């Protein structure tokens, strides 16, 4: 049974782990919606970052005339910054912390970039105004100075400055810077000339705007360079890489978890099936055991019933037989007694004696029958006890033969032999029952004149008796019930008999610890072999009822 308990414990463990794992998996399941949103937002950081760079470059080159796109993109980035703060729920804490550190790096980079952009917007607005205005102003100054008759002194310098500024804006290398500085000096040095043609206000404005361009262009370009170099894009990329790595790890974990879950499910199925099969087998075994028990009980019952039936049958036969067997000698007694009563005085002595002898013979027959019945009854009630005494076996047997010869008037030839030590200790009365019946049967079931061999032999421990006749023989099918009460062979029904003789033999031998065997050939004769312990003790003999 310990195997079965183990199996159930294993099954229980499997089920519990399965449920626990299922709960765990469901709770830590990768929410595809959440993951898609998060990954999308992380990618969007990079898209917006690139977009910002592009928009700034466009604004710097005058292709974008407003800053709303920059403001909107930064606003969107700040919205994403807040949205990304909550790491996906399927991330373990360590992963969430790492991701949050990467995002913090990115936030710092973004803040830096935002500061650069704010400065850029301020400076760029001023620079663009001057860049656009200076050529217009220069043209006007030149026109006016031409109109005033001054072409060389002032207008040429302004023209020169205008060209230098355009070169400076276009390239901005050391040569261009040197040239624009010199051109500025020239214009400032020609302010008197400007005054002469009444353009001193315009000249001052031109100088101021030229200064704006010379001062602000490097500033703006530096802002743009710094902004382009700001590590926000790389930081966003690293955040996304970190996220992807942990997402892959979570995916792998979930695959392993699902494999484990599958293995557990398989284990549950296998263990469950084993349990089912075993319990079915146990049930089948229990069923077959009960069936066996029932069958045995049934058979015992049937046997008992058969025995009871046989017993009833035997009793019926006994009643039938005894009523017949007892009636015959009784009739003989009654008729002889009546004859003696009616005619006794008139009959001679011989005839009277004849009838008296008939009465005696019949009474003797009845007595023997009665003794047999009583003996069987005692034996069956367990009341038959041997009472052994020392006897001389040869003499006892000889007397038995003589008595038989006398009672049968020597109808058969009885050949009696004795071998061995005749001094034995036996129950004379029981021995009388055994041998008397066997010899009587031999006489009864063989034709008169035939020979009957009665052999006795003693050894140190046992006495062997054999009684052989040359009579009817016993049909083989009758052999099994040969020694049961009231049983008579089918080929002996026509002969008088109670069916008690061999039953008496068997019971008498049983209580003496003796055995009887029989050999018989139908129509050729029968031999009974009897063996009885030579020295019979009384104390330990207890007869168990059959």
């Amino acid at each position, binding site marked *: 049974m310990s195997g079965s308990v183990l199996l159930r414990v294993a099954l229980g463990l499997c089920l519990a782990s399965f449920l626990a794992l299922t709960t765990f998996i469901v709770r830590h399941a990768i929410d595809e919606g959440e993951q898609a949103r998060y990954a999308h937002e992380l990618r969007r950081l990079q898209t917006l970052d690139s977009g910002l760079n592009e928009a700034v470059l466009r604004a710097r080159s005058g292709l974008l005339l407003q800053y709303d796109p920059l403001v909107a*993109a930064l606003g969107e980035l700040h919205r994403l910054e807040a949205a990304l703060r909550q790491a996906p729920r399927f991330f373990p804490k360590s992963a969430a912390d790492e991701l949050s550190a990467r995002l913090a790096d990115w936030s710092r980079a973004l803040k830096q970039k935002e500061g650069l952009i704010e400065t850029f917007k301020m400076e760029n607005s001023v620079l663009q105004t001057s860049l656009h*205005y200076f050529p217009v102003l220069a043209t006007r100054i030149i026109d006016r100075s031409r109109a005033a008759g001054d072409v060389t002194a002032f207008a040429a310098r302004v023209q020169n400055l205008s060209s230098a500024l355009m070169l400076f804006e276009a390239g901005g290398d050391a040569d261009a810077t040197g040239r624009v500085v010199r051109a500025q000096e020239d214009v400032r040095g020609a302010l008197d000339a400007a005054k002469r043609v009444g353009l001193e206000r315009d000249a001052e404005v031109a100088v101021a705007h030229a200064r*704006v361009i010379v001062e602000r262009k490097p500033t703006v370009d530096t802002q743009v360079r710094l902004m382009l170099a700001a590590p926000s894009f790389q930081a966003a990329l690293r955040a996304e890489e970190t996220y992807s790595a942990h997402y892959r790890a979570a995916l792998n974990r979930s695959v392993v978890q699902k494999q484990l879950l599958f293995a557990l499910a398989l284990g*549950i199925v296998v263990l469950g*099936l084993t349990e089912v099969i075993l319990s079915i087998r146990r049930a089948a075994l229990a069923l077959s055991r009960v069936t066996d028990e029932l069958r045995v009980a049934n058979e015992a019952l049937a046997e008992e019933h058969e025995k009871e039936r046989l017993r009833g049958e035997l009793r019926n036969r006994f009643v039938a037989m005894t009523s017949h067997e007892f009636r015959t000698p009784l009739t003989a007694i009654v008729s002889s007694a009546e004859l003696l009563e009616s005619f006794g005085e008139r009959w001679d002595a011989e005839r009277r004696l004849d009838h008296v002898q008939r009465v005696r013979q019949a009474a003797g027959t009845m007595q023997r029958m009665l003794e047999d019945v009583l003996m069987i009854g005692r034996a069956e009630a367990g009341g038959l006890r041997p009472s052994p005494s020392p006897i001389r076996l040869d003499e006892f047997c000889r007397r038995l033969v003589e008595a038989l010869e006398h009672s049968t008037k020597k109808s058969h030839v009885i050949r009696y032999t004795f071998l061995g030590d005749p001094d034995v200790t036996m129950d004379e009365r029981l021995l009388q029952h055994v041998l008397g019946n066997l010899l009587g049967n031999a006489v009864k079931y063989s034709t008169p004149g035939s020979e009957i061999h009665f052999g006795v032999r003693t050894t140190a421990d046992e006495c062997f008796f054999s009684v052989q006749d040359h009579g009817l023989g016993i049909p083989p099918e009758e052999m099994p019930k040969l020694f049961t009460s009231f049983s008579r062979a089918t080929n002996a029904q026509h002969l008088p008999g109670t069916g008690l003789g061999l039953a008496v033999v068997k019971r008498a031998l049983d209580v003496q610890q003796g055995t009887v065997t029989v050999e018989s050939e139908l129509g050729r004769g029968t031999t009974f072999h009897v063996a009885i312990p030579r020295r019979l003790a009384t104390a330990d003999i207890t007869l168990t009822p059959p």
Partner: protein
Amino acid sequence: MAVDGKKLTQSRGCLRALAVGLVLAACRSPTTTEEAPGFEPFTTTTDQPIEPLPLEEPVNRERATLGEALFEEPLLSGDSKVACADCHHRDHALADPRPLSRAAGRPDSPVNSPTMYNVRYLFKLAWGARFDSLEAHNDALMTNPNVMASSWEGSAKRLAGKPGYRERFQRAFPDGLTPANVRTALLEYERSLVTPNAPFDRYLRGDAGAISERAKSGYGLFKAYGCASCHQGMAVGGNMLQRVGVMRDYFADRGKVTPPDWGHFNSTHLERDRFVFRVPSLRNVALTAPYFHDGTATTLESAVTLMARYQLGRELESDDAELLAEFLRTLTGEYRGKAP
């Protein structure tokens, strides 16, 4: 045994179904999520420096109406004497006609109260750009002892004592009158204050006759002088910072510099931010005189003249100031179908 075999098959089937079901439940087929339509911040509708305002913004009417009542409700202030509308006058396009605002029992406001219209489009709030969001600005004004001298909690408590508010909040919010909901309602109202469909917006959208020829000339000057370098975007400003006095020292010329003139410096304490202000939106500018943080310019013409001088380093010529003012007047939009 036939019966046993059948039972066996049944139990095997049941176990398999159980296992398969549980495994399927645990695996859960991944759900595909549609990505929200991407907000594209880099698109512009025109090639102009100025964008028309959106014709509509999503607004929760119930809450905005409630917020409107709160905007005029003195119970919001700690002493129940000052309402938002005391400095943002309904009859002055929610701005203050006085150079510096003055509320009952409060010292003079250090700066001119600007209009509330289109605040939702401003990238930072307050003249000095101290606040990054309307929420932060409202929170600060609410607790500022020189303004509302209150708190959302205190306001909610006082409002609860006045009949009607509980019911109105109950209608607008599932959890009724709470400090957070007072703030939400007020903000909803402020964000509902948009003025689309200005003549200039109609012009930008293709209606050539929406503005006069003089205004069109004004718009040309607006770009040519360089005003549009800073006053750009859909709010015509409000999306960047700029130093006041780029080309000439405005404060030296005006004199009497006080801390409110330091602008963004007051928030960052960085020297480079001194005199740096948020470029104000020019939407509805014709209705919101006086101008500048100090309220010193009383007319559009004087304002543009000063701006040209100090910011652009130029003196406006002939009637350019009038033309520019003409253009600026086309920036007056509609609020609930009428002029704000």
